[in-house]
């Protein structure tokens, strides 16, 4: 119960930080108080949130997936290659989602059924998937990093259009956040994911198919990365094999900043979503007050360390007390 309370408190703190951020930046630039200006600025960073939300599942089970950047590139180039070889664009998008899920399933199967550490497995598949993406793009004469462009307008509108006054990427982000949030927090499947992260042995002894559960989280993560990659290709209206290759670290940063414990068992979709927005607005705001993008990464890196250190302090006292009691009794 205390754990749950603390998580709620953390997300509350995060929301406060988000508001404080808006107010501080608003003092420098009144555009920040304009709702639509903020919403449109989010377009640039929504792709991090789209990948980070399902990543929360993986980290809750105690795993990690560093191959998502490669899956983003793989999905992007898949759409491009399939479309340029005459497939209908929406069929190509659908197939690219399947490719992303298949890549996630490969990760999940290797993690769940071989017992090799998730970081090692996904490190290997990171090279493998980005390699496959490069091979596909090289084999189809999409020379090197130039990519495939010239998509039909309907596809470009996917990330550049708007509906009900809200830009499409933000809508996709809200829908994905709601869907993944409901799945994690209100269904039996979601509870089982938590149990695997809290205590995999207990989960197995109570009859849960732990391996399949672990595998499914990586599959969802692949799906998320795939959606993110497709949105990004539509946003830039260009499909490239290296799209998203730099996004692994911001995505993990968003999940961890959102309150998910890197050792598993703890975390919420809402926290990840708020943290993604926090990071996104931070980038946008710092650029608005004339900071270069490199200085932005100093601030974001420091914010990550400071917030986690801050969160870590009281927690450790609780944990160590707990651990020493356990030791004394054994």
């Amino acid at each position: 119960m205390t754990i749950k309370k603390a998580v709620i408190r953390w997300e509350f703190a995060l929301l406060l930080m988000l508001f404080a951020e808006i107010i501080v930046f608003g003092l420098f630039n009144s555009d920040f108080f304009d709702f639509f200006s903020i919403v449109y600025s989010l377009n640039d960073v929504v792709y991090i949130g789209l990948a980070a939300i399902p990543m929360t599942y993986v980290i809750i089970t105690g795993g990690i997936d560093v191959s998502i950047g490669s899956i983003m590139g793989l999905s992007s180039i898949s759409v491009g290659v399939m479309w340029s070889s005459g497939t209908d664009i929406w069929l190509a998008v659908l197939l690219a989602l399947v490719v992303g899920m298949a890549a996630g399933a490969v990760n999940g199967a290797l993690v769940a059924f071989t017992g090799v550490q998730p970081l090692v497995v996904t490190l290997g598949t990171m090279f493998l998937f980005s390699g496959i993406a490069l091979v596909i793009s090289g084999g189809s004469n999409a020379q090197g990093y130039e990519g495939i462009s010239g998509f039909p307008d309907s596809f470009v509108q996917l990330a550049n259009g708007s509906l009900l006054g809200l830009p499409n990427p933000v809508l996709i982000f809200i829908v994905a956040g709601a869907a993944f949030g409901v799945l994690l927090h209100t269904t039996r499947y979601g509870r089982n994911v938590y149990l695997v992260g809290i205590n995999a042995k207990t989960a197995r002894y109570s009859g849960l198919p732990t391996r399949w559960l672990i595998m499914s989280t990586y599959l969802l993560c692949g799906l998320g990365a795939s959606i993110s990659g497709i949105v990004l290709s539509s946003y830039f209206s260009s499909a490239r094999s290296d799209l998203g290759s730099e996004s692994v670290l911001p995505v993990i940063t968003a999940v961890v900043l959102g309150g998910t414990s890197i050792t598993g068992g703890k975390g919420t979709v809402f926290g990840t979503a708020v943290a993604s927005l926090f990071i996104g607005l931070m980038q946008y705001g710092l650029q608005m007050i004339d900071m270069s993008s490199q200085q932005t990464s100093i601030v974001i890196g420091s914010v990550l360390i400071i917030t986690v250190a801050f969160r870590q302090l009281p927690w450790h006292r609780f944990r160590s007390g707990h651990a020493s009691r356990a030791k004394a009794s054994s």
Partner: protein
Amino acid sequence: MSVISKLFKARELSVFLFLIAYLLLVGIVNPSILYGESLSSLLNNSVILILLALGQCYVLLTGEIDVSVGSIMGLSAVACGSLLLAGIPVLVMTPLVLLCGMLVGLINGLGVTLLRIPSIIMTLGTLGTIRGIMLTITDGKWIEDIPHAYKQLASVKLMGINIVVWISVLLLLGAHFFLMRTRYGRYFYAVGDNPGGAHLLGIPVKRMKLAAFVVSGGTSALAGLCFVMNIGFVPNQTGSGLELSAIAAAVLGGVSLAGGLGTALGAGIGAIFLTLISSSLVFLKIEAYWNNAISGLLLLIIVISDNQLQKWGEKKRAHDHAAQLASARPEFPGAKLQQNQNRGASS
């Protein structure tokens, strides 16, 4: 115990045999890879990865991880370049750059030990911060016109092999000896294998972890120095992405991410192997864009088959033990894994 199961235990030996086998296999297709010239250029190209994997090995042994090495290398390369351009002599510049790298390592270590931040998060934070600082110093520009005298150092040879290669190989062997044969070296293993037990034995767990991060920072700085020497300029993305290659090299060489398992020599061989894979493509006349796919596939195959063989070996050993000594408590497979999971949950 049979020779085979001993072989599985000496992981660096099996990786080395794997490396030789791969080399010979490529040699069948194109013998020119076996010429002295190609082999020495292979070693030359591996230097940076060897150094990074060596530092990473110390950190991994203590059960932590350092994903900031690429950034530290980049920062050191920038520091090296700017100091040289400012006319500071090499003998003064080198210790300054090494100190700078070790300082970042110290910050990582303090965050992990003092503030108790999980190492992956701490070093993720410094990864971004340090890269930002590096780019702020250079203003996003490349550093060019490195003095010729410094670049010349890269081609100084001793017995046909570059002095830089000598230095890194000697460092590697020294580290291997230190970790395997000295008391303090063994402490690194003890800390990673069982931090609680190490603490009870009076081993300064936190100080060892701190030392591991400082070593990692130092070797990353050294890698930055070598980079500037070899390349002759400093692009603004220097070292980015290398952190994952360094971890992959160490893992390929048999260093376990769970801590307490692996050797420095293994990490070095892993680094040479990774470099060999990418440079062998030229000899096999395969287009360069296949590099990642092949490296990733080989990494997965080696790590997973090794893991399965170890499990099989342990099961067999446990079975033999149980048969021989009914009174002896058999070691059950997966004990190490569970122990680590427990540790992960309590830290």
